[in-house]
């Protein structure tokens, strides 16, 4: 089972943190800080795996991947395969990349709810649900479309709507 998905930048600021078992906010912060301090002390060109019993209890493993300014982190237990989890991060990043066309840290910050929509299509209640990025994208787009359709009022405030034509 996957215990947590985290994204944090190289300064340790959490960008997305999702825990599949409930934890108090303080505990979440503690774990995020703990994970960051371990990650930031890892040298370059080493394995992407960590055994992290000290933070998440016995039989906890962590897989991380470093993209530009972001760490993508998956925490899981012994019933998952480390290499496969590494590929799951790849799936997530690929999907986000397609979703936001050339994803960067800010996309994740500003599209918080979309980010979660994508994540929920991949990991559901701690289990891997879908790994085909095209399918994930399709599902997310369908949601967006329906949301937009069901939404008669414009949700974009005037101050930002001026930029909408830019793209």
């Amino acid at each position, binding site marked *: 089972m996957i215990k947590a998905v985290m994204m944090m930048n190289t300064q340790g600021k959490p960008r997305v943190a999702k825990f599949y078992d409930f934890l108090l906010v303080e505990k979440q912060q503690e774990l995020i800080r703990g994970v960051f301090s371990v990650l930031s002390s890892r040298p370059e060109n080493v394995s992407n795996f960590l055994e992290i019993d000290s933070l998440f209890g016995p039989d906890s493993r962590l897989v991380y991947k470093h993209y530009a300014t972001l760490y993508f982190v998956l925490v899981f237990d012994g019933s998952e395969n480390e290499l496969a989890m590494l590929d799951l991060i790849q799936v997530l990043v690929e999907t986000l990349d397609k979703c936001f066309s050339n994803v960067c840290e800010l996309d994740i910050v500003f599209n918080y709810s979309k980010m979660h*929509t994508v994540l929920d299509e991949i990991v559901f209640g701690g289990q891997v649900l879908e790994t085909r990025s095209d399918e994930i994208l399709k599902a997310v787009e369908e949601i967006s479309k329906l949301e937009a359709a069901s939404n008669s009022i414009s949700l974009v405030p005037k101050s930002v709507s001026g930029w909408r034509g830019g793209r």
Partner: protein
Amino acid sequence: MEQLKTIGRELAMGSQGGFGQSKEFLDLVKSIGEARSKAEEDRIVLSEIDILKRKLLEPDIPKRKMKEYIIRLVYIEMLGHDASFGYIHAVKMTHDDNLLLKRTGYLAVTLFLNEDHDLIILIVNTIQKDLRSDNYLVVCAALNAICRLINEETIPAVLPQVVDLLNHQKEAVRKKAIMALHRFHRKSPSSVSHLISNFRKRLCDNDPGVMGATLCPLFDLITEDVSSYKDLVSSFVSILKQVTERRLPKSYDYHQMPAPFIQIKLLKIMALLGCGDKSASEIMYMVLGDLFRKCDSSTNIGNAILYECIRCISCIIPSPKLLEAAADAISKFLKSDSHNLKYMGIDGLGRLIKISPDIAEQHQLAVIDCLEDPDDTLKRKTFELLYKMTKSSNVEVIVDRMTDYMISINDNHYKTEIASRCVELAEQFAPSNQWFIQIMNKVFEHAGDLVNIKVAHNLMRLIAEGFGEDDDDADSKLRLSAVESYLQIMSEPKLPSLFLQVISWVLGEYGTADGKYSASYISGKLCDVADAYSSDETVKGYAVSALMKIYAFEIASGRKVDVLPECQSLIEELLASHSTDLQQRAYELQALLALDARAVESILPLDASCEDIEVDKDLSFLNGYIQQAIESGAQPYISERERSCMLETTDYHSRDHHEVPSHALRFEAYERPKPSSLPTQASTELVPVPEPSYYSEAHQPISTSSVSERESSEIKLRLDGVKQKWGRPSYQSSTSASSTPPQAANGTSSHPDVGVGSSSLKPRSSYESKKPEIDPEKQRLAASLFGGSSSSRSDRKSSSGGHKPAKGTASKPPKENPIPVQPPPDLLDFGEPTATSVTATDPFKELEGLMDSLSQDGGSTDVMGVLYSDAAPVTTTTSVDSLLSELSDSSKGNPGTYQSQTSKGPNSKEALEKDALVRQMGVNPTSQNPTLFKDLLG
């Protein structure tokens, strides 16, 4: 700020499909991004919280504004600040009909609330409604929410809807419904236990994605109860076969691998099902062999599958060919440049080494490279491997390496683990006691505060008892070396408390024993300890006791005792100590100093720490005094048992509810039902209680194989009788009376599990270098680690034989003890019946039948052949429909039976009996659940 460079682009991007944010939110994110310090960030967030608190109080907030506030709340909570003031607004938002708002509401509540939160009750109704929605996206949102928000009590409220959704026309919904049901099962197995058959049913779903999702709950279910799912082995194998043959739609490919995540889950399940089951394993051989051939080891995901195959092979009973293939894959991993693959290689090696111990040898240099790798993860994994392959021939090298590493790291959690491993290995394989003490000193010195206190007691015991043989000379040498090493170490600053306790005890006991050190020298050292660690009362206590012993030995041997001035001041200080324990010790010491030699000798005899103290439990020496008291009119003593009978009910109460102090008003009527329920509880702890139906059967004295089962039932009977007669309190008092442990004299408690074997050091076989170009240093290390395989195994055997006479070793069976290369399969099978001995069918009647057909063994294997002919060959029809047909085929093929193949001599009665037991194991589970098959069939 690097990330701000892109902000312009980001703003230009604006919103996509309605995910827009306001200027305020962008400003907030921006200012937090620019914050120079944590304090500044906190200040910004706090002012944001103020703004939100104010705004949320405003009347008639437009919905789009509200949505944004909620997102901002989520954001500040992610930064670690409390957003609970806004939870109710998130809850309200889930009630909205607008999909966007509803989804935002659900997202927020799943992040904010836990399943026991008070607000959940306000959401359950909405979830119920949404689960029935026509819009499947609404249904998905609700399913997503229930994974987080539903607890044991609320499961029944949504369960019917979720079960209905298992047949939803959209596969995305079916998939999520299965996952939700799985989640329920994890949270409260009992609430969905009647629905488990649905998972089997969904395994035959038309959509491969749904089938893949079903594997997650099935994996959990099979982990809990392997035997009930043995009938699915061939189904899983054929699914895997079809996946690897690319029968699934192309869209399931990931990096040119067909549905790798499904393959991995299937392999995990097969590992569980094939564990210790020869016939199940045999079904898997083919597909596993294919996987090794087909897997593309150039991609990450291909290697993931390869690794999973290795793992599977290490669990099932493998064929030699598969073992070879797994070994090849491992060597590829180890030779790779990627640290990830090396890690997997080391892990795989650790798994395979249990089955074929020789395998590590080919990779010794790779292992040593990993040990010296800068990657900590890899290093730790390698230490784990070394730990698994430790034997008496290489224990010194491995433990030395481990202790060095232990000293070098700061991570307390891992330090504790590796320290306990060092201790375990040292206790198990120590070649000599001197070496053992050296290692212990190292461990205590550097991780003393982290190790278990038992370890310290074990060490003291070892020093006290010595080799266990009648070799006093060696014992005193050992003690002297211990004393010498401690006197040296003592001068180091800041030693861990536990280590100081050991040091004090040993110095007190043996510091002056062979006359090398004078009493005043040792007592001076002890006073230094008490002085330097004056805040540690335990250490001080040990030090004072040690002083007492030293002076006692001096007095007893007739020498004049000069109490050092610092010692005198220590005693005076402790006489006024706040700790009663220290005070007592100080007073005792003072009293002892005033006694004559004869009395002192009987109080603290020399070197008597191993002698048992005879405790006069009846306190017979007080008889005269009691007689006198009774004669002068005192009440005679009523024993605890008699008293506890009188006070039974109140006693129960106080025992069960320690936290309830007032039980004066409780009267018997309330408590009546309890005593009857308690004994059964207690008896389940002691003896696995068979089900009633089985229980009666167990009394039929039919065959020899039932002896053990009858024994257990007899034990149970006896226990029942005991408890019904006296109830729980009497039980406890009797144990407390009888379980006074043989307390060792002079203060150490003796622990039964000292694991120090007296196995002697075996000559190491020299490593014949095959590759001369390699660093000789490494080669030496490799040689000492891996040794020669042949010598090492004989070594293992002899050490296991030699362990028997050694005290203590038997109590802790070493994990890596000589495993015969491959145990005979029937033994393994035979081991199972005791584990799940609750049977529905009468095992003995079946056994009888089998005994009758003693000579017809050949015939019965024929039957098995027929059974398998249905299941084994895989039809070549395409796609998932064939999965379905095969599933039902295989279940038709063996209606309620799953037979294990065993090849044995036809005339061996014993083998037949075992065989019968194995069969009966295979028979039960499915016959208990006939409905499952109905489901599968149609």
